[in-house]
């Protein structure tokens, strides 16, 4: 693994997107210049690119443990993969008009489901408990021959909490229901061996694992009922028409190969840095806590709620020090409400707005982590001094009633 290019900043927002690995860039470059052929062409220009795509397909196959390389369908992004999976399931099974998903899905799934509700589909949103966990009994009760597809994320982008998708897929299969998982956050961070599971479809996104933006994959288990989202050419065996984004596909293949090589590192070194960061901050900052399920989550993600202050303000102050993170506050989401994931877990509003997500990658170093641990406490203290919920020494007595402005 080559060292990342020198930057001044400390990048802890890898669940948003990742740096493209230098090796990936290198692998891609020829496909912008001499390897410009159309892989569909019969001549040598096309053939060379076709072979490179074939290799990339096998590299993706290896990372997610697909039985066949033909089960890999290249798309433009995770969102396209999600849309393809869900729309395919309802179009291919006209009699089935129910969908099962969860309240904490990514908008790529949630917004689509909400839209499908306006078209008459019945969507069941599984709720989560305070740690972001699902109730499997409720899920089992919802499975029926009216359900076209279950779509449940493998790992939550905000809290990192892992869902038991393998068990849920088995349950779906036993009742004859298709199972899709948005694994955009999980692929490359936790081992996945699809041939040993009952998962029918899986979405992944290149830019979450050090490949470029604009490339995604839909894993489509052999013999799964399918309808394409885009029709046109014969690319991807007619399952996703459109000339291949060959450079990005080659880059994704390389990134998958590297992710497989570093899987152990992810589980050990990245996890160690994450744990150190979390413990360091929790020890130094009063009135903050970890959200999600600390015992069962991605090794790279820590989501900490800083009470009585607001997340965007935290991010702006961190950014001033060159530290990049993200937040579940209303302001950073661009809506008027804090993160739907934090609300679903019942995190109080005084804390939900202050949730801050630190997501690491294998390119982080322990000395960066120590610098962040040193930077966070003064920022939190400074913002609390401005907060009407904070007195000299701690939160005002009964914050809820001491400052409860009336507002429509």
């Amino acid at each position, binding site marked *: 693994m080559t060292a990342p290019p020198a930057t001044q900043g400390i990048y802890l927002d890898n669940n948003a997107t990742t740096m493209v690995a230098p090796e990936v860039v290198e692998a891609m470059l020829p496909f912008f210049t001499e390897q410009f052929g159309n892989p569909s062409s019969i001549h040598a220009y096309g053939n060379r690119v076709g072979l490179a795509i074939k290799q990339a397909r096998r590299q993706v196959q290896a990372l997610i443990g697909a039985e066949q390389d033909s089960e890999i369908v290249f798309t433009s992004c995770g969102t396209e993969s999600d849309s393809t999976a869900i729309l395919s399931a309802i179009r291919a099974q006209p009699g089935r008009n129910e969908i099962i998903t969860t309240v904490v899905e990514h908008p790529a799934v949630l917004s689509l489901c909400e839209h499908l509700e306006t078209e008459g589909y019945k969507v069941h949103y599984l709720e989560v408990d305070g740690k972001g966990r699902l109730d499997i009994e409720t899920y089992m009760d919802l499975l029926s021959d009216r359900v076209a597809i279950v779509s449940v994320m493998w790992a939550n982008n905000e809290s990192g909490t892992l869902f038991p998708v393998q068990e849920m897929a088995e349950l779906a299969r036993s009742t004859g229901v298709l199972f899709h998982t948005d694994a955009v956050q999980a692929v490359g961070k936790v081992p996945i061996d699809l041939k040993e599971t009952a998962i029918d479809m899986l979405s992944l996104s290149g830019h979450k694992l050090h490949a470029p933006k604009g490339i995604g994959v839909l894993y489509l288990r052999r013999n799964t009922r399918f309808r394409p989202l885009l029709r046109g050419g014969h690319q991807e065996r007619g399952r996703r028409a459109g000339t291949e984004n060959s450079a990005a596909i080659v880059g994704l293949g390389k990134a998958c190969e590297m992710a497989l090589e570093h899987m152990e590192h992810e589980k050990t070194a990245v996890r160690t840095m994450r744990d150190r960061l979390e413990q360091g901050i929790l020890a130094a900052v009063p009135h903050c806590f970890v959200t999600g399920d600390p015992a069962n989550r991605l090794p790279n993600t820590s989501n900490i709620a800083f009470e*009585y*202050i*607001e*997340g*965007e*303000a935290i991010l*702006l*102050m961190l*950014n*001033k020090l060159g530290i990049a993170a993200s937040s579940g*506050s*209303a*302001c*950073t989401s*661009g*809506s*008027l*409400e*804090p993160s739907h994931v934090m609300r679903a877990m019942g995190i109080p*509003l*005084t804390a939900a*707005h202050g949730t801050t997500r630190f997501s690491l990658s294998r390119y982080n170093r322990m000395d960066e982590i120590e610098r962040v641990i040193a930077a966070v406490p003064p920022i939190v203290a400074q913002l609390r*001094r*401005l*907060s*009407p*919920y904070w007195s000299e020494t701690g939160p005002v007595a009964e914050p809820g009633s001491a*400052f*409860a*402005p*009336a*507002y*429509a």
Partner: protein
Amino acid sequence: MWDYSEKVQEHFFNPRNAGAVPEANAVGDVGSLSCGDALRLTLRVDPESEVILDAGFQTFGCGSAIASSSALTEIIKGMALNEALEVSNQDIADYLDGLPPEKMHCSVMGREALQAAIANYRGEEWKDDHEEGALVCKCFAVDAVLIEDTIRANGLSTVEEVTHYTKAGGGCSACHEGVEAILARVLAEQGKAFDPYAKAPEAASSPAPRKLGNLERIRRIERSIEAIRPNLQRDHGDVELIDVDGRNVFVNMTGACAGCQMASTTLDGIQQRIVEDLGEFVRVLPAQAMAGRG
């Protein structure tokens, strides 16, 4: 990342008048925890002159909420209460060299905190007359509540009408689906169905228009434009008549209208008004288009 002005960043990183004022005799609490914005404004007012001697803020909120609070305290210090009541949210935003549309509510919160604090000083009960809904049109910062109220008050039934009345939907088109959903909901309450293909009702046609003389025609065009100007001035814009050449009416968009991405919609609105007033079709064009017509 938000496009914050230098001034916003400066007031966020170095807020003025943070903390509660000692011996305050006026307090205003506004905001909403669910929205992630809450502000307590404390003032020390001279009982003789009613001049604000000191102002301090405590804010739970984002960068622009803190900057708006800081700006507010700077603006009102030294003002008499009656003078301070004239401070608008636009004044706060202007002081900060503008705020992103999604963040204008931060300046609204500042103005309301001020009103609440003054009411508190005077022993009055302050009523929040402003209800804010989810932002629907991001181009022009129009929220759901405003759209809903406007639809009800004016009996609107099409997206086009909503755009003419509120501006919502006049920019990037992204919110048309959202505006349609609001229309469908409000119309359903009135027992009507939303028809996406409905045309905006035509203005009642005036009795057979007689042919106008040139002077009378230009005067009418002038009157139509005069009637529109206050609307534009409210948004810091303006329009002036440059020339009338047959069917073409040339105007100059000035102030905030110049270079506004809404300019073409504004021109459409002006055109519609003139067409209605004149009873004949004219085309309203920016004066720059004159050169090209030689």
